[in-house]
């Protein structure tokens, strides 16, 4: 296992200093909206929590950490805390462009699906990392500090209703922020608000419920209702909804090898159909074991890539 103190300390410092776990300003990674006709006013603020934007870079980092894990050179990592400023430029160089483009495409599709269903708007300056990793690693103090920073910005902008893109951000804003801050926003996952139309997609899909949607937020049935409306042919495996199994993603930075082994088990359970994911971490971690997986937003839209 990679030294948890190293990962937790780096993460805390980066988030508290820059608002971003990679230690860079959000502008450097948040570009999906630049090619989209976004509205600046509406009923529901689209808040991505930066997870889709961060995931391609995190995956690149994990592929390197995997080489260090449990090797003779693992001790080198302890010096990483002194070279934080080098991390993002290097990561950007080694992160596949197509992964970044795919994340952007997913966010465009989610926005488009929302735009055809509710009064949605987006303000890039308000969109911030959700802080969930700090919470997961038990750094409640840093999580609370960051959450208060996010909530302050949103409250100053008079935001009342927030729609999110991924399960971790949904859980953070809906369940955790009210516990750690004075947040009282109405928070929904985009999957709860959209009204998808019929789409023409061939083949059979198998659903991988993320743990936060399946167990913590319990919206798995609702997702299936939406899918039924589109006419998409999907199936469930034994371990789905509240009993879904983890993709292994949450431990990828601490132990990429075990995280990958967990993904392998999950991939076997899901079988040979194309896997539908609803979380950037699930999508990335399942793909580490070479499965055919796709984000649900790319399926819910028509071939044009946009909701009608």
């Amino acid at each position: 296992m990679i030294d948890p103190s190293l990962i937790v300390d780096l993460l805390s410092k980066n988030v508290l200093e820059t608002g971003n776990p990679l230690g860079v300003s959000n502008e450097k990674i948040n570009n999906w909206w630049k090619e989209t006709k976004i509205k600046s006013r509406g009923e529901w603020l689209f808040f991505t929590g930066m997870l889709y934007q961060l995931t391609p870079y995190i995956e690149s980092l994990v592929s390197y950490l995997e080489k260090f894990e449990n090797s003779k050179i693992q001790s080198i990592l302890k010096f990483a805390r002194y070279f934080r400023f080098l991390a993002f430029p290097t990561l950007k160089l080694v992160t596949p462009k197509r992964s970044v483009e795919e994340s952007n495409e997913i966010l465009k599709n989610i926005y488009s699906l929302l735009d055809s269903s509710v009064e949605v708007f987006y303000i890039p300056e308000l969109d911030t990392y959700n802080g969930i990793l700090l919470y997961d690693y038990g750094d409640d103090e840093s999580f609370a500090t960051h959450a208060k920073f996010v909530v302050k910005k949103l409250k100053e902008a008079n935001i009342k209703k927030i729609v999110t893109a991924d399960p971790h951000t949904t859980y953070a804003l809906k369940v955790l922020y009210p516990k750690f801050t004075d947040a009282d926003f109405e928070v929904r996952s985009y999957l709860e608000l959209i009204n998808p139309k019929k789409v023409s997609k061939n083949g059979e899909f198998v659903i991988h419920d993320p743990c936060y949607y399946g167990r913590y937020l319990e919206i798995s049935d609702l997702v299936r209702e939406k899918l039924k409306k589109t006419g998409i042919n999907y199936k469930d495996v034994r371990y789905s909804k509240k009993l879904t199994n983890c993709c292994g993603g949450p431990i990828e930075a601490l132990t990429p090898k075990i995280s990958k082994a967990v993904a392998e088990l999950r991939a076997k359970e899901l079988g040979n159909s194309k896997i539908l994911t609803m979380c950037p971490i699930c999508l990335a971690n399942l793909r580490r074991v070479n499965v055919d997986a796709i984000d649900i937003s790319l399926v819910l839209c028509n071939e044009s890539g946009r909701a009608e």
Partner: protein
Amino acid sequence: MDIYEALANKSIRNGILRSLRNLSPQVEKNLQEHPYLLEYAEELKKAKVEVLENLDFWIDKASKILQAKGVEVFYARDASEARNIAEKIVGANKIVVKAKSMVSEEIHLREHLEKMGNEVLETDLGELIVQLANDKPMHSVIPALHYSEEQVAEILKKIGVNGKNAEELAKGVRIFMRKKFLNADVGISGCNALSAETGRIFLIENEGNIRLSTTLPKRYIALVGIEKILPNDELALKSVLVQAAFFGTFPPTYINVNEKVDGQEMYAIFIDNGRKVTEFREQLLCIRCGRCQLECPVFQNLGNVWGGSAYGGPMGVVWTAITEKRSEICFLSTLCGKCREVCPMKINIPEMMRKIRRLLKKSFRG
């Protein structure tokens, strides 16, 4: 074995998944056919919460009823005290037959008694295999799930048992153990539930070895984790039924209700070992059905190697924090919440994992 060796050891993963495939549908069936078990579980949780809120009272009550029945009662504050008490009761150069007990693993009693010159034999087949292989139980209920039939055959040769298949091997072990049971000086068991009303000790099993271990020897020691105390017989019985159902074998083949009988010396050692003063009290609701282990994706890959010296897996990480004050292993959890979902007591293990992390964070350089 470390976590990476465990990861590379396919027999651990295969054994756990095989057990999961066999037992998980059984758990569902048990709960569908006997829906009252879920009510029992709720009732049990409520009773356990009440006992834990007033543990001193219940320990005192249970001790007094046991003493009134002629049982000699001891209280061990930690593992070392528990071993010393047991050592004094057992003495040296004795034959000791021992039922499978996680609390005895926790205090490493078998190894200690062996050092004192006793011949100590695990009487549960799986645990005996683990003992002979000088290994660690890979699951709290199915200790030898990671061994193939061929490996078991090889291991059992150490006690002169030979056989071509599982049936023959089991028969050989039965013959071997019978002699030991009949000649044993001391029998040791754990305790699945203790009734503070009657001092009765409830134990479930599927092989029949526990009743032989606890009734044949002239001297019987029951190791009782203090969280096993329940107010009455009815709750103690419900506790073992829920434990069996959530493990996957319902009804259990045998339910033993042990108490002091004429002609046998009986001793009860209450074991604290971090339980009474802990920041993780919710874990004491655990009835050790082992379901959270089988259902956990990290445990499925690492088995009990992900754990402390006795307990592993989701519940084991928290038990290890309680009994060994060892905690960095909590970072291997994905916090996916499956353990809480399948737990009959709905113990919020992910939140306790986070709490352990929170406490550890204070020791980081920051």
